């Protein structure tokens, strides 16, 4: 699995020599490269990475990772197939890098809440996932805090209230929306500043659903943590448990049997199809086209029922385990799945034709909610959101895991960056996933579906491409128990693009823009 990432770390020297000595480089168990960096070299190194078009895809805070008990910060950078992790001391001397890598803003705020780490010259020091009722100086991810119920503040005074960005001027007024929305959706607060109907500014406040996923995992045995990984985001259950298991397997140094990867890959792609169908139906609801919406919602229900027939869960839950999959799939189940998908494909094409030949739908989709390509790298956007705006990035291609180096999915890139492009990219991805599953069923080898996994200490990074984009899992195991479980779903980064996507659009188009980006609140809030 790590072969495509290369065994040499020569590219590091190409970037840093002779500016910064790149000694101390070490390759991790998932192929990622770790580089400890002192605070004096930190700013220069980050600038160097920015000039080489690296993307900051994650920031992991962790205590006791370095020499002492203090907090270390692991900055995870990506460029094409390379992953570089800078290890720095979170002792308060590091500068904020949000001006160089805007994706760092939420990452740093997350670390400040979790560990109490300060970043010098940070322009946004508001709390992120700890809202008003959390006590002051409370940092739940510190090891000194044992996970137990806390007493929240009783009253929220106006001084405690979250200070939103102020936008003022002639004719500007504010529209606060949420956290409880009109539809059956998850909670989040949107603060619109509008002039007439046109959106002038949008600030998103999330983390209403902060459930303490990462802390919950700590101290558990890895095998007990699958339900926690599934609970990150319901419709990404397979992707997040696969990422978690990959990290655990890399730490243990085991190779998952081939047939297990065939089953896992089928499940991952079924999950992608199910998720994309929901978005497509939702986008059509939001432009008032029930004829099309019902085509997709019927197909989605069919898919969810097929999920249940195949695995016993409409959300494909309970199938992935460390070392493989929970049970083998009998060949007749696979044949049934293949025949279902072949019927499904024909009906999907019918639904798609209805939608794409309806001018009123195209009129609402085209040029709405444009996300500029120039946002992809600064905000670490991924998934269909990025691929509809000109990105060719796909974790399955860049960091192939399991079977994806042999079964490369067709990646569709469009350049308009609007709702229509996102709809079309998702349609192409559904067809590509159908192709992939059919091929996997045809070529699936016989053999075991699970291997024994011995407990070993270590840490590792795993990346998967969920339906929404790149999901990241960084795991550390110590004495057989989880020391740190860091999840960063694609939605965490993609949410930060919505404030850009809605600008100059009218407020009534917000629902369809939001749906087209398919952002998970649960996966962001953790």
């Amino acid at each position: 699995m790590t072969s495509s990432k290369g065994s040499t770390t020569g590219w590091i020297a190409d970037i840093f020599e002779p500016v910064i000595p790149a000694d101390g480089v070490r390759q991790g168990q998932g192929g990622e490269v770790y580089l400890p960096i002192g605070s004096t070299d930190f700013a220069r190194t980050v600038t160097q990475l920015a000039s080489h078009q690296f993307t900051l895809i994650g920031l992991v805070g962790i205590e006791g990772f370095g020499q002492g008990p203090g907090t270390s910060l692991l900055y995870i950078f990506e460029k094409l197939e390379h992953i570089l992790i800078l290890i720095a001391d979170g002792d308060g001397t590091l500068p904020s890098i949000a001006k160089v890598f805007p994706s760092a803003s939420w990452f740093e705020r997350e670390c400040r809440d979790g560990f109490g780490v300060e970043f010098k010259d940070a322009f946004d020091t508001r709390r992120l996932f700890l809202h008003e009722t959390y006590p002051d100086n409370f940092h739940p991810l510190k090891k000194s805090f044992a996970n137990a119920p806390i007493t929240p503040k009783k009253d929220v005074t106006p001084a405690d209230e979250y200070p939103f960005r102020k936008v003022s001027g002639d004719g500007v007024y504010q529209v606060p929306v949420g956290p409880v929305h009109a539809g059956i959706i998850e909670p989040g607060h949107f603060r619109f500043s509008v002039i007439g109907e046109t959106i002038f500014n949008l600030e998103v406040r999330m983390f209403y659903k902060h459930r303490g996923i990462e802390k919950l995992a700590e101290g558990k045995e890895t095998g007990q943590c699958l339900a926690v990984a599934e609970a990150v985001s319901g419709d990404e259950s397979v992707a997040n448990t696969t990422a978690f298991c990959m990290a655990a397997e890399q730490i243990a140094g085991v190779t998952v049997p081939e047939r297990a990867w065939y089953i896992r890959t089928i499940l991952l792609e079924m999950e992608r199809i199910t998720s994309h169908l929901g978005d497509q139906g939702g986008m059509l609801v939001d432009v008032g086209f029930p004829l099309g919406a019902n085509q997709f919602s019927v197909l989605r229900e069919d898919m969810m029922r097929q999920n249940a027939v195949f695995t016993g869960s409409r959300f494909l839950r309970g199938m992935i385990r460390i070392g493989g999959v929970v049970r083998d799939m009998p060949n007749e189940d696979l044949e049934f799945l293949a025949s279902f998908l072949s019927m499904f494909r024909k009906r999907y094409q019918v639904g798609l034709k209805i939608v794409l030949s309806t001018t009123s739908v195209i009129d609402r989709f085209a040029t709405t909610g444009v996300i500029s390509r120039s946002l992809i790298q600064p905000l670490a956007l991924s998934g269909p959101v990025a691929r509809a705006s000109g990105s060719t990035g796909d974790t399955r291609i860049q960091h192939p895991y399991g079977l994806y180096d042999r079964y490369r999915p067709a990646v569709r890139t469009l350049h308009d960056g609007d709702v229509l492009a996102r709809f079309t990219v998702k349609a192409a991805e559904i067809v590509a996933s159908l192709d992939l599953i059919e091929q996997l069923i045809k070529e699936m080898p016989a053999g075991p579906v699970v291997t024994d996994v011995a407990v070993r200490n270590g840490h590792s990074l795993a990346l998967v491409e969920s339906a929404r984009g790149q999901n990241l899992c960084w795991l550390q195991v110590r004495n057989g128990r989880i020391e740190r479980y860091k999840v960063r779903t694609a939605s965490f980064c993609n949410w930060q693009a919505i404030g850009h996507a809605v600008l100059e659009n009218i407020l009534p188009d917000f629902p369809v823009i939001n749906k087209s980006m398919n952002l998970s609140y649960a996966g962001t809030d953790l």
Partner: protein
Amino acid sequence: MVNALSCFIKKKLTEDEPIRDDDVERIGREIHAEVDAIFGRSLAIRELDTGSDNATEIEINNLTNPYYDAERFGITFVASPRHADVLLVTGAVTHNMAIAAKKTYDAMPAPKFVVAVGDEACTGGIFAGTYAVMGGVDKILPVDMKIPGNPPTPAEILAGLSALMKKARQN
């Protein structure tokens, strides 16, 4: 006259409805009868997510797809708690949602009912006893009915609503 005649002869434009489950139809008829009798033919439901993993929302949303089409049974999902008879709550109650959840409940006119949907809403599930959640919905609101599941299926949610109707009639 010719046009009117041709309407009868021409192939119908609408499609046959998808095959429906007998169970769902039976539960739906029960709900319909109860809603007619107790709620004046319309049961208005407001959904509230206090910290779910989004799977339960997906299943509640699925109640409106053509397979279930729950509106046939007199159930409507409404946009405002001020229009709602029933609050359908999903997820363990997070500290960050507690205030909004209480405000939502307070905005509903009496008589009102609270239904906890999914394991986490019922008991706190895997999050019970941790720093970020208060526990199940009954920690902050009076719960009239619990529908367990991870997540419960649309049919199970309908069955739970049917049980709520029967309970409401008894009171």
